[in-house]
């Protein structure tokens, strides 16, 4: 199954999750996501998501000059980002539970009598 569409819905949470403990810069975060098995998302999508989360006030950002190369822009999670991550994590767990239950034990369809059919 193509998980790209699924991932788009949860990319925000995924990005918040990989920087929950350590600040990271753009490609660093892409690398962490890939290491976690999220491989189908383009790097531009990750960078755009970082910018959107930053604009929404979930992240802090700072620029670090690097020796002999271009500067890097680091992102870190803040209190609001943590609160959102927690809320989304709870939502996700509940939703995933529901889905798992649904997929593991299909609900029997209600039986409907046809016309002329006797009990």
């Amino acid at each position, binding site marked *: 199954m193509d998980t790209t569409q699924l991932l788009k819905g949860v*990319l925000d949470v995924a990005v918040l999750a990989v920087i929950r403990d350590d600040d990271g*810069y*753009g*490609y*660093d975060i*892409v*690398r962490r996501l890939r290491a976690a098995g999220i491989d189908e998302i*383009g*790097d*531009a*999508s*990750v*960078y*755009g*998501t970082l*910018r*959107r989360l*930053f*604009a929404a006030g979930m992240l802090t950002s700072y*620029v670090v*000059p*690097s020796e*002999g*190369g*271009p*500067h*890097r*822009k680091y992102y870190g999670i803040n209190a609001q980002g943590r609160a959102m991550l927690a809320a989304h994590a709870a939502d996700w767990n509940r939703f995933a539970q529901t889905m798992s239950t649904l997929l593991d034990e299909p609900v029997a369809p209600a039986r409907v009598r046809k016309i002329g059919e006797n009990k």
Partner: protein
Amino acid sequence: MKTLSIDPAILTFAAAVRNALDDLPADDIDDLTDGLEADLSEQAADGRPALADPVAYADELRAAAGLAPRAAAGRAPLIDLALVRANLRHAPEDLARAIRSRPGLSAIADLLISMRPVWWTIRGLVLVGALTIEWLANSAQRVPLWLWIAASVGVVVSVQWGRGRWLPTRGRRAIPFVASVVAVLAIIPLYIGVTTYVSRQFAEVYSGAGFEPTGLQLDGTPITNVFAYGPDGELLTDVQLFDQEGNPLTVTGADFGGAVLDGYNEIGYYALIPRSSAPGAAGWNIYPLVSLDPAYFDADGLPTANNPTIESTPPFERTQPLVGATVPDGGEK
């Protein structure tokens, strides 16, 4: 930022990405692309796929950042129409407040408001004038009666509009306003048109064919009769006069078609006709012309049919004889 160690292809790609985002505010572009070169370099070092389409990359950045696509985003319009409309809608009240808050301006405004009927009148005249002046100037006629009537109607309609009457419900305010604007714009063209028309009318009066004096004149004054005296000082009759070209020297002018040359002088009405020796149209240069006898005029003081004639009264009974002149004597010299 040091860029020496960056692959030129990455620099080009990043520049192209920024270019594809250039409809966004500069801050947004910076937020989206700060550190892009570092990320791309590192990705290249990781052996990830080569750089692809910078526009698609920019679109992905933009979409993930929750910004509208470029096509839909467009540029902010140069003129915010909604704002302009709102300002215009409030302009009358704003202006009124500004004027009323100043006693001097307020007094002037009251005066102008009392004078509005004057403007309504002028507006009516200007609009009718603007519609007709070109025709009038080209026709070079006197102002015809119907135009006076039209002007009166225009004034009445304009004043009624000013009073809020004779207007459809829609356009109750727009029609008088548009009429005023058109009238203001028409004033200068109308002024030019009227000036042209008036100057043409004057030219018509002083040099037009209809008013050009004909016949004999002395210093611009028309001559009605000619009296010739012989060398002996006696009044001559049946004198035939011609000019240097051999044209009959008539007091009436060459194209005169009437049977009687009449008019008013200091004495009163006079009526002259050719002498009986050369009656009719050919006799206008045979002098002196004879007068219709006023004794036979009708009750209105005008000639009757077959009104008898008398010799016109000469200015002098005789003049002084000319010394040394040859006096004709019985047809011989």
